[in-house]
């Protein structure tokens, strides 16, 4: 297969300068996809490194599925370049790309057995039947499917087993990059958790590059080396799970983890003030932010302040309601017109109706530009 760069326009684009230090297997430069007036994907630049596990998260309609379909070759980009190992693949159709997609629906062939499904890409390559079967059984071992399933009707498999068949089929294709379109979204919580771990193990064993699309940040954090967050067709931030959690690029990314306490603050003559006039201690401003910012305090960093204890910012309020999160509790605290969320370990001495002081230290808050 030749994936030669055919367009001379590439040389004129700043493609060479975009090559990062580590060897990228798949590279996107200024990729846009327009449907009519609507830009589903609006200028995405990203490099996927060899052997990396990258998740792209975003709410529905953020363009992540369109992005994936372009990577897999089911849609062509309206603008920009997609290169695989340095070769432009914009117009290379799905069947000619050494990449493989695991569909949300799994797209298992209902009229074929487990074995026939897995062997499908091998049959395409005209591998002799005996070799095909040996390879299929090997792959079934890899995804932990019992050998007896080889002749089983695939529609009679359970949800988790179908996942494994779909994975084995994708591996049978032996792609350079595997794409996943929320394949775990239909499963129950426990099975999902187990399969997340298995998928990560499989990634390590195979050494292949995984690109995983999901709307669940939690799922992405568990499995990925890097997480990209998409919103309205744009890749808002990409970084390690740690970076995404501790240094979100904006409020959207910060709020993607769940509800937060946020304060829009302005710098006046006598320091930072919230919208209601309350003076706040603010530190750790991101670059380029000087007079206005949003301070985000996650419920897990907001805490109850014992009387007399020192804290940078304190608020008086009343506990209105409490929710169990398992090992921790979340409290809804009303203070004036506002409602704050506080998380604390189970077994605290507070309960609904109590007057409390809540607060946080400036260093624990996240400050973003907008």
């Amino acid at each position, binding site marked *: 297969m030749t994936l030669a760069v055919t367009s001379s326009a590439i040389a004129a684009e700043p493609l060479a300068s975009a090559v990062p230090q580590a060897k990228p297997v798949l590279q996107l430069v200024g990729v846009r996809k327009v449907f009519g007036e609507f830009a589903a994907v609006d200028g995405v630049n990203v490099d996927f490194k060899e052997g990396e596990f990258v998740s792209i998260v975003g709410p529905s309609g953020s363009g992540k599925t369109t992005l994936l379909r372009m990577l897999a070759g089911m849609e062509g980009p309206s603008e920009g370049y997609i290169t695989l190992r340095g070769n432009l693949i914009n*117009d290379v159709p799905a069947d000619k790309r050494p990449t493989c997609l695991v569909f949300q629906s799994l797209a298992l062939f209902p009229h074929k057995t487990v074995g026939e499904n897995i062997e499908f890409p091998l049959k395409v390559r005209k591998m002799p039947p005996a070799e095909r079967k040996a390879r299929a059984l090997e792959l079934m071992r890899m995804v932990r499917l019992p050998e007896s399933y080889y002749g089983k009707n695939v529609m009679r498999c359970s949800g988790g087993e179908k996942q494994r068949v779909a994975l084995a089929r994708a591996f049978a294709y032996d792609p350079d990059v595997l794409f996943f379109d929320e394949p775990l979204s239909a499963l129950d919580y426990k099975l999902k958790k187990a399969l997340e771990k298995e998928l990560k193990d499989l990634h390590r064993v195979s050494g292949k590059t995984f690109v995983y699309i999901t709307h669940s940040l939690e799922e992405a954090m568990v499995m990925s080396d890097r997480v990209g967050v998409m919103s309205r067709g744009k890749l808002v931030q990409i970084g390690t799970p740690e970076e995404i959690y501790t240094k979100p690029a904006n409020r959207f990314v910060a709020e993607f983890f769940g509800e937060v306490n946020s304060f829009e603050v302005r710098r006046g003559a006598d320091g930072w003030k919230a919208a209601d006039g309350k003076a706040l201690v603010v530190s750790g401003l991101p670059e380029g932010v000087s007079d206005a910012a949003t301070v985000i305090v996650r419920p897990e960093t907001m805490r109850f302040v014992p009387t007399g204890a020192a804290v940078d910012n304190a608020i008086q309020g009343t506990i209105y309601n409490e929710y169990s999160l398992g090992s921790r509790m979340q409290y809804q605290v009303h203070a004036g017109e506002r409602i704050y969320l506080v998380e604390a370990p189970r077994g605290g001495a507070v309960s609904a109706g109590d007057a409390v002081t809540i607060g946080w230290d400036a260093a624990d808050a996240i400050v973003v530009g907008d």
Partner: protein
Amino acid sequence: METRAQIRTRFAIRVWTAFVLLLVYLPILCGALAGLTKGRYFVFPVKVFSGEWWEKTLSSLEIQTLVHNSLLIAVIVTLVSVLFAFFGALAFARYEWKGRKLYQKIILLPIFFPQPVLGLALLLWFNALGINPSWMTAVIAHLVWIVPVVTLVIAIQVYGFDPTLEEAARDLGASRWFILREVTLPILWPGIWSGALFAFLLSWGNFPLSLYTAGVDSTIPKWLYSKMVAGYTPMVPALGTMSTLSAAALLLGGGLIGMLLRRRRAEA
């Protein structure tokens, strides 16, 4: 992601479809042309056009009887078949019951059956019962074939019907009749409407069943056939064209009414 081969295939499919459609309508156009010529015998290219045969057809008493018979049969067939098929479709697609799979197959048999043979078999049966064939026996014959078709048409709509809606209505205290009137019928209405159109039009155009089971009474297709075999006059293509045009008008009108009502409901 379109290859040149795909574009070529698409083009070929479009051309092929257009060509087949042309063939589908070509004989209907030929008939229309023949009904508008002046002479007794059809000669192409047509030298003189005239509405003379249309006038003769419209003023013929014999043909008025035919139209009357065809209409009467079609109206009764429509009413009865919609009623039967509505419940038939619920049994087909809505309820889970023991005999359902078997029932689904039995109901298809009259459709998967040569109509001339069905007509002749009915003729024998009516004779055995001592019933003289007339337009009324033709109604029965039409029903045997049309009720299964309408059942399928309505069943397709029933498949899209969420049975929990009826359960929710019952949970809210609605009676069986109230649920039927307020929930089931309004939701299945588009299927019932298309079913009624199908019933009328299939009865209106049916030839093989009417031929053997209408006895001395004649319908439009039956009369046309007798004149095609012996005694051609340009009234044959003229009446054929009129019958076709009225079917088209009904289909168009029925389709439009259906669309308007659906749109009004969607906008409300």
